């Protein structure tokens, strides 16, 4: 230090001034970085506030037929089977009854099933108005007055739109009955196909590009193209998927070739087409991330392996891949998260907007959570907004749990390497 301040180019005064200016820059930068983090957190909190605000709150229920009038004052839940059957016969049209009887003979149904049927077909509780969580808490008195004035025979309940029934019910045109089971299963099936398709293919391509491909113009072009593909808008992939999987490969994606579907009714708008389309979408991401991870494996390990008389494949299989695995998994997690949240390409590929049958395999019709949310938000009734918000929470929980399990998997892989 002494020789610095005594040298002519580092006059002591200048140095002190210079130093305080450098510290000032450092502080300014720190504030800027902190601010950008805070903006990000605020945005996230706003999103959470919005979703949670709509997912819970007061609702005003109204019965089409008040239950008291059905059983002359006795509570509906306690009525015997015969009474419930009598109510159904009186109140429900013969046509509908015949249909229900075909599904499962009415006389064979349990008391609870009959009660549910009476509620659904006769009493028909209906939500007439909903309020947000914040309103429900802070404007409770006003809401009570409003209900008393506008809906005299309605009653007010606090409702969590996100509930067990919501998770286990299929789609319905009545918001109080609608659920996301079909959409959750659709999302899971689609992502499963995406992983099965894109993971081996992506990792394989990455191994080829990193370990086998020589550095020539053809491989450089391939590499550049893969990098560019990662930035192509997802709707383009949707159109690609529509052309290839839904149309050109229809006999395969519809399952006709495998005898899994009726040739007369089947088409290519299936889970398989959607999964393959999303697979194409995330393939470049998986390849690039896996390449990055493979490149990060120190060359000294490869040399050690070759030096022991290992072949190229033994080197890759026993040393390169295990060491690259945590990185490859991280990239795959990010890609799969993207696939789960993707909506646009699935609209093009032909996700069903209204479907009540669970997907049962790769050749099923399907919908996914983002499609469901998109569809609900575009409905005019308020209640569907609440459903969309609740479905958003489900989607986020699904994403988080998939990510968490993948992170655990990665940690395990990392521990195994470090020994």
């Amino acid at each position, binding site marked *: 230090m002494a020789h610095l301040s005594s040298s002519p180019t580092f006059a002591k005064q200048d140095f002190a001034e210079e130093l305080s200016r450098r510290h000032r820059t450092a502080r300014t930068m720190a504030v800027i970085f902190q601010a950008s983090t805070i903006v990000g957190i605020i945005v996230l909190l706003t999103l959470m506030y919005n979703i949670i605000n709509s997912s819970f709150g007061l609702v005003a229920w109204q019965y089409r037929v008040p239950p008291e009038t059905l059983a002359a004052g006795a509570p509906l839940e306690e009525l015997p089977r015969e009474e419930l059957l009598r109510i159904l016969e009186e109140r429900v049209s013969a046509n509908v009854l015949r249909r229900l009887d075909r599904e499962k003979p009415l006389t064979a149904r349990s008391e609870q099933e009959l009660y549910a049927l009476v509620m659904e077909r006769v009493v028909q509780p209906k939500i007439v108005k909903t309020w947000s969580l914040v309103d429900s808490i802070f404007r409770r008195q006003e809401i009570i007055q409003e209900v008393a004035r506008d809906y005299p025979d309605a009653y007010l309940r606090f409702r969590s739109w996100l509930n067990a029934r919501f998770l286990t019910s299929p789609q319905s045109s009545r918001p109080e009955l609608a659920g996301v089971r079909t959409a959750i299963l659709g999302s899971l099936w689609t992502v499963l196909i995406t992983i099965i398709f894109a993971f081996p293919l992506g990792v394989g391509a990455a191994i080829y590009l990193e370990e086998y491909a*020589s*550095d020539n113009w053809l491989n450089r072009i391939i590499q550049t193209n893969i990098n560019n593909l990662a930035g192509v808008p997802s709707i383009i992939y949707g159109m690609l998927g529509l052309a290839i999987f839904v149309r050109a490969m229809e006999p395969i994606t519809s399952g006709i070739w495998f005898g899994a579907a009726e040739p007369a009714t089947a088409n290519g708008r299936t889970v398989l087409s959607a999964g393959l389309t999303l697979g194409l979408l995330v393939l470049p991401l998986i390849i690039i991330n896996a390449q990055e991870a493979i490149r990060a494996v*120190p060359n*000294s*390990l*490869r*040399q*050690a*392996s*070759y*030096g*022991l*008389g*290992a*072949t190229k494949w*033994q080197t890759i299989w*026993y*040393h390169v891949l295990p*060491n690259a695995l945590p990185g490859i998994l991280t990239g795959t997690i990010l890609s799969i998260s993207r696939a789960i949240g993707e909506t646009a390409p699935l609209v093009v590929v032909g996700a069903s907007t209204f479907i009540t049958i669970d997907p049962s395999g790769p050749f099923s019709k399907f919908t996914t959570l983002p499609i469901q949310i998109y569809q609900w938000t575009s409905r005019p009734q308020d209640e569907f907004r609440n459903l969309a918000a609740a479905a958003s929470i489900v989607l986020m929980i699904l994403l988080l749990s998939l990510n968490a399990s993948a992170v655990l998997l990665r940690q395990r892989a990392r521990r195994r*390497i*470090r*020994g």
Partner: protein
Amino acid sequence: MDVKIAFQPSMRTESMPASAGKYAIEARNLTVYYHDRPAVRDINLAIERQRITAIIGPSGCGKSTLLRAFNRMNDLIPCARVEGEVLFEGINIYDPAVDPVLVRRRIGMVFQRPNPFPKSIYENVAWGARINGYRGNMDELVERALRQAALWDEVKDKLHQSALSLSGGQQQRLCIARAIAIKPEIILMDEPASALDPIATLKIEELMIDLAEQYTIIIVTHNMQQAARVSHYTAFLMVDENRVGYLVEYGPTAQIFTNPRDKRTEDYITGRFG
């Protein structure tokens, strides 16, 4: 000439020295190119069996390149190309019919920085034998290799711990154990002690002297005292004005260090340059 059969790995025993030829390995008119530019040129070097041969010379003279030419490790560098011959058991290892994997199986290598696999100590030693089709008692093999590498007493209670938990010197001896576990004829060592402290270095040197009873060892070193201490033969390389390495003098270490024939060797070992 059935090259493949000649290179079948034989599990050699001490009493049965490897076949044909007076020398362990011999470079003839060897030139190694990187991007069509020679790194070392016209090397003629015959390595004695079961002796330690040191390759010394100033930085950038191609010592490591020459060493790696002896087991075709330069093949892994895409732009590298070799001219001339390297004879091992009477066969040119650069013959197109020779599989480099078999060459490396017979001519092992220890690198400058300790590079154990991120696995257990046991696995580090066992892996090479296993992939080369060893079917015997693996525990015995691991113990023997670790004993030969003078590491057994230090690690026998923690064989299944990560190799990365060892110190640098221990890691390097583990790498030597790993190399000798597959019973090569020749062990190439590329500055094996340059990343180690003096005590660890001493252990490695003692180990090399022990190993020379069974193995032919070629060592590249920057450290002339090390070459003088451990080696039986010394090859001195220099760079010419085009930055191409060439062999100046090769002979018994005692002669090179006490009575060099070439003025350049004398200048180098007396510390006048380099």
